[in-house]
Structures are given as C-alpha cells and as structure tokens.
C-alpha cells in the first residue's frame, strides 16, 4: 500500500443509480447460438469410439426380481457392455432423507419403467435390439395405484422406510391457536379439491454422455438443471472422490424441474464408461421421459377457513394428500411446500397444516414449476372466490383488504420483504375492466381472478451445510476481456444473460466482452442449480460481489495513473473516468493493464448465502426465501353451457418481479408461465390405468406420448396482457426477484373462477374438462349443488401437531411441544443436522 497515490484509494467506486444495461431489453447472450443451431445440447455431443446405451425397464408395476438373463443379449452383434444393479449397490436420491433409488434395480421394481439392466453397443440400433433380448423374470407384488390404496395397504411396503406403511411422509403443524381462530369466525368455509398430476414435457429428451480421462477420472455431460447435486450422487454411487468427477451441465432444452434430480441413466452412463474405458451416450426416448417424470404431484386437498362477516380470515386448516409415485425424489420438500406458502399473500393469523405423501407404483413425482405450491394455491384461490361470492364481497376487494404487509413475518415464520401484490391486483382489475364486467356479463362469458406468490430461491440448500449457495469468479487480463465462471445452469430461462449483464453493468463494459464458463464442476464455483427460481437472486448477488471487487481492483490501478481517488472513478461505456471530469480517463482495457501491472494476475470471487430465516421449528427449512414474488391474473372465459366446451379468450397477468434485469426475458417468463398454467388448467394430466386382469393387471401410463399427453399449441394460446410490476426488494440484485415460476400459480384457479362467473358452476379440480362443466350444470338442473369435484378427504390420524406460537402471540419461532408432537417433521437427516450445528459452535 506504500505506493498509494491517495490515502483513501482502497475504497472502490459505488454503483450508480443510473443503470445503463440493467432494465433495458438486450439480446440474450446465447441468442445467436440458439437461432443458428450452434448451441450444443447433450445429445449433440459425439466423441471418437463412443458407444450407445439403452436401459431395460420394468414391464410390471411392482415385483420382486427373480432372475435376469443377459446371455442372449450379450451374444448379439455390437454389444460391448452390460450392467445390472449389483454393480452399483449404493443408493442415491436428491434429498439426504430419501436415498431410495438405485442406478439399476437390485431386488425389486416399483413402477413400469424402473430400470433393471443397462446395455451398451456400437450403435443405438444394436443397443436397442440387445435390450429387447434381455430376459427378466418377475414375481408380482400387490400394486398400489392411489393415495387411498396406499393408506389402506400398509403391507407390502413399496419401500422399507418412511413414516408408516406406504406413507412416505406424514406431518402436522399448527401455528397459533387455530381453534380459537375458528371461534372468532362468523362462518367457516370448507372445500375439498383435487389437482391432477402433470409432467414437464421439456422438448429435449434427457441425454447424457460420459467419458473417462484416466482409469479413475470421469467427465459427465448431461441435460441436468443441477450439476452439483448430480456430482454428489455420482461420487456416492461410483465410489470415486468428487474431485475426480467432472459434471458439465449442457444447456437444457427445457427443464421446468424435470431435470433437477440425479437420474439413474446418468449414473449408468458414467459406470458404463468407467467399465468400458470409452465414451458412452444415452438419450432417452420420449416414452422414457414420461417414466422419468418427477412432475407435479397429484394432490387431494381439504381446506377449511374461518371468516368474519367482513371477509377477514381468522384461521385456516389445510390438509393435503400427495400421490408421490414410486420414489422419494424431492417429495419430502414437496409435501411441506403444499402448505408453506399459504401464508405469504393474505393475513392468516392462525394456521394448521397436515399432510401425507404416499408411495404408489407409478413414476416418481417431484418438482415442477411452482414445486408443490400450485396445488394448494389452486384450492385457496377458488375457496376465496366462493367465500367472496357467499359474503357478497368483490373477490378483488376481499384480497386487497387483507394483504400481508411488506417487511413482516407470517404466522408460520416466513419473512416477507417487498410485497407488490396489491399493485398486481389493481393492475389486472383495471386492465380487464373487472369492476364493469365481473358478474355482469351474459351467460357463458365470465371473468375469474386469482393470485399467487413464489420463492426467489429456497432459503436452505438441499443438504445441510454452511457454504455459499452460489459463487462467481471473474478473471480479467490485459485483453480487456472478462471471463466469468459460475456454476449456474442455463435451462432456457436466461440465467447466463442475467449474470453477464450484472457483471457488464458494474464494470461498465459491453456484454460481448464477457466470456462465460458455466455449469462445469471442474472449473466453476458451486451453484446449487436451476431450481426454486434461485439463480437471478443468488448467482446475481454473487456476480455483484465479484464484479464490485474487480471494479475496485481496476479502479485502484487506474487511480494511480489518473491521479484521482479510486472511489471517484466511473465505469461506463468501456471506459474508466473521473466522475467530475469524464474526459479524464482510460479505456477499460488500459485501466486493467494498469491494475495488472500493479497487482499481478487479476481475479476476484463473489458468493451468496441467503439470510437466516426466523423460523426455528423442525420443518421451518421449507418456505423461507430471500424474497417473494407476487402475481395476479384475470382470465376471461367463454363457455358453451350446452356442451361444457370452453375457450380462454384473454389473460391479464401482473407480476411483481422486484426489478427487471432484462424486460424482454421477464416477458418471456411471464408468457411462458401463463401458457404452462393454461395447459395445467385445461388439459395436461399424467394419469394411469390398470390393464384388465387377463392382460397382467398392470398399472400403466395412460399416454406416454406427446400426441396423447395434450399440451397447448399455437392455436390454443389466447392473447395475454402482461403488466410488469417493479417493487424492488433489498435482498435482490438491483432489487430483482423471480419471474420463472410465480406467474404460473394464479392461472389454474383464475380459469376455474372464470368458468364459475360464466356459467355459475364450480369445477373443484384441474384439469377442467368440458364434461366436468356439463355434469356440474346437469347436477344444478336437478336441484343439486352445481359442482364437479372430489367428495371427501380420507380419514387420517395425524396425531398431535407440532405447535408453534405465531409472532403475534409472542412466539420465538420455536415449537413448544417438540417431544410430544405426534408426527416427525424435518427435512434433513439427523446426522447432517448435528454436523451442521457442530459447525456453528
């Protein structure tokens, strides 16, 4: 420091309020590659001597494996490798508490599609034929198709772990004195609702290419949203040190949550490559993508709410039952998420939440856009519409009069920061002509309103640790270019562009002068992955820290040359200059040369760890987020009462994104969410049927093809009026919050509410098919309630809930009855938890 020109030149410049790039629509950094075919997706990769792998999948839903005969297959032309489950005995799974998957099934198969054998051959055709020649003998076990069957059939168990019988998870929690809350109410409303399962349907089929570099060193390219978690699973199952495994997440051809688990095909490809010493590729067929699934859980819900005459909510009791499919996946977290975010939109002073997740013999469910929250959000928003109608209060007003306050803590101890839901509601009400048209249009035409909220990143990592959840490393040199290293994964949402833009903004350089290296576990700092809408906020904040440190270094170099205090320098337009005299400056490149001359090789890092949540009870790990986004939608529907056939004529969507990093990308996420929500509301369903007894009685996928799994085409997409609401959050980079998932949430309930406004009947489940509307109309004509939907919620003994006093009751975030609560709660293993606590002390 002896050579400092000014004593205070250690301080760097501050970021100006005058943003040049943030908030403007710029072409995404991968835009050109994506329109020219240059983007290399996993299946686009090819290496010399590469062989192709196929998986032999179970043809029965639940069975013991009696024998596997690979003799015919191994003798077939081109076959070079075969693997069975014994070669990979260690289980894996995304959550530490649900390590229940094997790369290949060892003793037992649990759904049609569960992989049993991996075959590698010189060509894909040869691998396919050899896979058909593998003979597996099964001893069938009783099949469980639904939550009700799982409750009624504790034995045989699909897994030998879980809270009881075939219930993977069972939980019960109470925030505040809920009974007292119901007593304060003038009326108690109760509904039973159902949300059918559906799947992500990314256009890209999952693909993986694995190749060895040394006998014990391997590189795995994959279409994964979570290279870091795949890295951990590979280390565990392959028994290799993590430092010898390199995972590179290729750009994903769509994810939506469907590529967030470590998958058996990824581990098998790696094992096969290590066995054969040559590159191995697998690309799933579309049918196999349906078996991978990890999609939206089917959820049956009972929602009971105490309400005062003026519409004030006094208490809510929510019960959810999730059909989890055959494995744990993210299911424990999904279970909590079907309750956790009920409290962040409207004041809910007392709240009881009970839930089960059942194992069934179907492809495993997991996280899909909105992860566990769209189902209870659907129930809540339709329920509120009914309450408003009953109490003759306008549905928009009912919501506006009890919004959660900004900078408050909810009854279940979630810290809400910025809160733009009021502005969102006002925008769609005004834009849609709600006040003039809702409840006032001719029969067959209706408007429905609904809202939602989502995380900007989960507050806790999937495994307990105290390390950053995102990291960015910058390297600057005399070329004037900046290399940006970050573990984040581009799945189409534009995350590469977000971190590049943030860095370019702070360093005042052109986006084209930033070279990105992302999602490579050998080269890039860890980022936990593209899930829970976490990347803009977390990687964005890490990028800010790294870029500000780089700016300080460069400023100190330039300060000496310019004889100006570093903190008075401005970085803009590719120059570094004195704020008071812009003529006095250097090009960015010249400034970097000054800094490199003075300090040597230049590099900085930045990292991000979310703030600690105030909740201290077991289970408080699911729900906290650095910031919550808010959305409101009005949907206009045209319904033909004679047939039940309906069309969505228009959607008004307002989303509180905090601050746009790039409005064009924000618009893309809003419109994409509206689209996917409409698909879920109107047609998408992942459903199963039993074959007749004489044809094996197996439980099979009803339509594992894109033709039969209906999703909206260009022709079904209505006009969308989108309002971007910017209510900056202090925790977000430049105030930004998420936009990738939130705007999906209001769509399903808004459609249901619009149908009610059009024809006066309720369909309390999605997807809403015309025959459901028709049946509800017919019921009404017969003098019965004009409703279609589930009739009852199963009787479940939830035991004594974990009792957590609310902030208003003077609670401290902890439960008061940890020892006598009837069901276990928690999301991490106890060992991990203890280790984490030890680390703290």
């Amino acid at each position, binding site marked *: 420091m002896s050579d400092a020109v000014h004593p205070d030149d250690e301080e760097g410049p501050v970021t100006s309020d005058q943003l040049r790039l943030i908030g403007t629509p710029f072409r995404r950094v991968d835009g050109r*590659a994506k329109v020219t075919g240059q983007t290399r997706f996993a299946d686009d990769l090819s290496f010399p001597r590469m062989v192709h792998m196929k998986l032999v999948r179970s043809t029965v839903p639940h069975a013991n494996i009696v024998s596997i005969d690979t003799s015919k297959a191994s003798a077939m032309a081109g076959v070079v490798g075969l693997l069975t489950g014994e070669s990979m005995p260690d289980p894996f799974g995304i959550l530490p508490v649900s390590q229940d998957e094997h790369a290949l099934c060892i003793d037992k198969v649990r759904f049609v599609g569960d992989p049993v054998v991996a075959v590698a051959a010189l060509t894909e055709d040869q691998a396919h034929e050899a896979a058909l020649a593998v003979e597996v003998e099964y001893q069938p076990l009783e099949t469980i198709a639904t939550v009700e069957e799982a409750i009624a059939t504790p034995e045989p168990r699909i897994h030998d772990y879980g809270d009881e019988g075939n219930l993977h998870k069972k939980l019960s929690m109470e925030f505040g004195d809920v009974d007292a809350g119901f007593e304060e109410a003038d009326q108690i409303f109760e509904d039973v609702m159902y949300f059918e399962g559906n799947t992500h349907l990314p256009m890209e089929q999952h693909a993986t290419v694995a190749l060895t570099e040394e006998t014990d060193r391997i590189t795995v390219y994959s279409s994964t949203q979570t290279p870091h978690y795949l890295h951990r699973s590979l280390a565990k199952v392959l028994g290799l040190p993590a430092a010898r495994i390199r995972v590179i997440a290729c750009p994903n051809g769509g994810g939506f949550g469907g590529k967030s688990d470590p998958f058996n095909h990824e581990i098998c490809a790696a094992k096969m490559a290590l066995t054969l010493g040559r590159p191995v590729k697998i690309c799933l067929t579309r049918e196999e993508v349906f078996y991978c699934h990890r999609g939206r859980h089917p959820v049956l819900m009972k929602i009971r709410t105490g309400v005062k005459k003026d519409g004030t909510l006094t208490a809510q009791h929510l019960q959810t039952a999730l059909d989890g499919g055959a494995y744990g996946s993210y299911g424990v977290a999904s279970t909590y998420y079907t309750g956790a975010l009920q409290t962040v939109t409207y004041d809910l002073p007392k709240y009881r939440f009970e839930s089960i997740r059942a194992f069934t013999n179907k492809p495993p469910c997991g996280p899909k856009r909105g992860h566990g929250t769209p189902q209870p959000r659907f129930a809540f928003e339709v329920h509120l519409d009914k309450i408003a109608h009953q109490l003759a209060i306008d549905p928009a007003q009912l919501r506006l009069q009890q919004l959660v306050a900004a900078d408050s803590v909810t009854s279940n101890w979630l810290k809400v920061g910025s809160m733009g839901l009021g502005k969102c509601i006002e925008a769609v009400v005004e834009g849609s002509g709600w006040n003039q048209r809702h409840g006032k249009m001719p029969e067959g035409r209706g408007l429905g309103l609904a809202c939602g909220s989502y995380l900007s990143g989960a507050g806790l990592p999937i495994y307990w640790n105290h390390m950053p959840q995102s990291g960015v490393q910058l390297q600057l040199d005399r070329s004037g270019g900046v290399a940006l290293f970050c573990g984040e994964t581009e799945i189409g949402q534009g995350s590469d562009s977000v971190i590049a833009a943030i860095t370019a903004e702070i360093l005042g350089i052109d986006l084209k002068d930033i070279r990105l290296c992302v999602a490579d576990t050998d080269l890039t700092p860890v980022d936990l992955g593209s899930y829970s809408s976490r990347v803009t906020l977390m990687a964005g904040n890490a990028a800010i820290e790294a870029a500000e440190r780089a700016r300080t270094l460069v400023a100190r170099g330039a300060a000496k040359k310019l004889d100006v205090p570093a903190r008075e320098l401005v970085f803009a337009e590719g120059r570094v200059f004195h704020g008071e005299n812009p003529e006095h400056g250097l090009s960015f490149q010249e400034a970097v040369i000054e800094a490199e001359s003075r300090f040597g090789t230049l590099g900085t890092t930045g990292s991000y760890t979310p703030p600690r949540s105030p909740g201290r009870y077991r289970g408080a790990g699911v729900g906290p987020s650095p910031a919550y986004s808010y959305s409101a939608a009005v949907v206009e529907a045209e319904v033909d009462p004679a047939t039940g056939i309906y069309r969505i004529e228009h959607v008004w969507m307002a989303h509180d994104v905090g601050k746009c990093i790039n409005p064009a990308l924000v618009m893309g996420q809003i419109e994409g969410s509206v*689209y996917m929500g409409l698909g879920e509301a109107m047609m998408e369903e992942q459903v199963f049927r039993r074959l007749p007894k004489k044809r094996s009685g197996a439980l099979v996928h009803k339509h594992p093809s894109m033709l039969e799994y209906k999703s909206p085409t260009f022709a079904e997409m209505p006009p969308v009026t989108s*309002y971007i609401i910017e209510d900056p959050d202090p925790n977000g980079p430049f105030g930004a919050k998420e936009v990738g998932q939130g705007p999906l949430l209001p769509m399903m309930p808004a459609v249901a509410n619009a149908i009610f406004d059009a024809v006066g009947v309720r369909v309390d489940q999605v997807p809403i098919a015309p025959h459901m509307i028709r049946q509800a109309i017919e019921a009404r004509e017969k003098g019965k309630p004009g409703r279609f939907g589930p009739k009852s919620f199963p009787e479940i003994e939830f035991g004594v809930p974990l009792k957590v006093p609310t902030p208003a009751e003077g609670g401290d975030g902890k439960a008061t009855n940890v020892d006598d609560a009837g069901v276990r709660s928690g999301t991490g293993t106890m060992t991990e938890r203890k280790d984490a606590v030890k680390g703290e002390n």
Partner: protein
Amino acid sequence: MSQQSTTRTLRVNGEPQQVAFAVHHSLLEVLREELGLTGTKHGCELGECGTCTVLIDGKPVLSCLELAAECEGRSIETVEGMMQGNQLHPLQSCFADLGAAQCGYCTPGILLAAQALLAENDSPTRDQIVEALSGNLCRCTGYHKILEAIEWAAARLRGDDQYQPPNSAIYGDPVPGKQAKDV
C-alpha cells in the same frame, strides 16, 4: 433389424454430400449422426412435436418420419443453412432479439417452418402464422414472442425497415393508472 447400408448423395443447404447410412435410418438420424448437422433437434421421433422440421424442396417436413434414402435428388435445408454469410437471417435475428428462443430446442424447426410460410406469403396474418406453426410445440415461450418475431421478420423481408414489434412485447403493457400517477 436390417443393418444394410446404402450410399446416397444428398443435397443439404445447397451442397452435395455423399453419405453412407443404414438404409432404414431417417433423415433426422442421417443429418445429425452422419453429417454432424446437430442443429436439427428431436423431441419425440414419432412425428408428434415438430421439433425436427427441415425443409425439403422448400416445404416443411418432419425429418424423423422421412427416410433419408428417399431424399436423393431433393433439396434439403436445415437451420445451419439459414444464415446469409456471417449475417443472421432476419427470422433468426428477430427471434434472438425478442427472446422467441428461450431454451432454443424447438427453435430450428420453428424457424424453418416460418421460413417456408414467408416464402409463400410475405404478409401472413396472425391466424395464418398460427395455422402454419400449429404442428410445432414450444414449452418455454407461450408462443407470443415467436408470433411477434415472425411478423417483425416478415416486415423486414418485405423491406419495411420502419416496422417495430409492439413495445408491449418487450416492456409489458402500460400498467393502468401508473402513468397518470407518475405524471
């Protein structure tokens, strides 16, 4: 399954390519695996999603359903052939600028289907574009950005450089009441 091989000369993006392949392989497989033209993607290989669309003699065709052996003597165009020198085709440029490509996986097929439409009709209506593209699925965009990008590109191809996509496509619609308050 027959592993019989055949050798054909395919004309791809204006250039003749002599290529040997298994006789039962689709044009999709031959483009990607034998010619290394991986810009053509696949989403189902069953003719359901439109992702693998290429142009044959100017018409959009699902390359997963077309036998490569039957493509000799026909003109095949893929996304790799769209650029004009080092410049993006107006469709490509408008898609990139508007964010009509998010994950980019369905994009090559949609670009080619749109190119075929604009070759036949330089001023298609919104309904005509929807009709022409209704066989191509996209899971990311909600389709609007694609429609707006095609309309923008059509204008540019007609020589209308004044045309701009609606401001609302990029910034969202003006928030009701906000402007009044701001003023």
